[in-house]
């Protein structure tokens, strides 16, 4: 349990630093970069919700609803930012 949490935290911090690195190098295709940032945000959202918040233990209704709201927000924002 504790190792799993630590592994999740390491992954989350790694993804955050990866975002920073991508930004520092200012790679081109800025529209696609927005999609990349929002995808990384979605993965981090999933990890925090399922591992820290224990969404994995909850009824399927809560899993589907929470992730659907996240997916909807990230998709609409990405499409508007491209």
């Amino acid at each position: 349990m504790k190792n799993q949490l630590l592994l999740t935290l390491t992954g989350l911090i790694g993804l955050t630093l990866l975002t920073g690195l991508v930004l520092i190098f200012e790679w081109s295709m800025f529209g696609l970069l927005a999609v990349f940032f929002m995808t990384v945000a979605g993965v981090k959202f999933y990890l925090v919700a399922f591992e820290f918040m224990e969404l994995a233990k909850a009824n399927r209704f809560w899993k589907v609803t929470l992730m659907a709201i996240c997916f909807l927000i990230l998709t609409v924002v990405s499409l508007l930012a491209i």
Partner: protein
Amino acid sequence: MELIQERPDNKNIFYPPGGLMIWIIILLELVTFGLGLIGFAYYGRMEPALFHESRLQLNIGLGTVNTVVLLVSGYMMASAVGCYRGGGKKRAIHFLKWTLLGGGIFICIKSFEYYEKFTSSIDMEDNMFFTFYWLLTGFHLVHVLVGMVILGWMLYKMRPVDTDISVDDLESGAAFWHMCDLIWLLLFPTLYLIF
């Protein structure tokens, strides 16, 4: 005092971890912030140059540090719940203190960021970007403060030897704290990175 008690089945739709009420609040908060972010992105599409110039005035380094601080405090909170559930009250208190420290650091960094904006005369009426910036980050900061009050109260109730709070109460507080994480994970890339 015995901490281990009969646990409700979290697979039941009415008993998610932390309780039904906090999950209804979480969904409503996410929808509210989500609509704010969609509104922000909509106006960003209307005025991309203005939003890009305004975004460059934000301190991405501080935003990144704040993200890491919130993630670490979320880990501490999850560890506190795990320890308390297993009967390790002392360790749970220890982790709860670290969680609160994380919240305090987040607020300090955010305050410094706000101070930077104030001294640069950037306020809510500057342009549409900063109207959304102040509203969304300010509203989120209020949630972090409320989360700290809730967790602080729980810590206060847990500290005496002869008193305890229920695991359900701690799970509810933890769910609220993680909600602050989730909202920030959506706010940070939208405000600081994509335009």
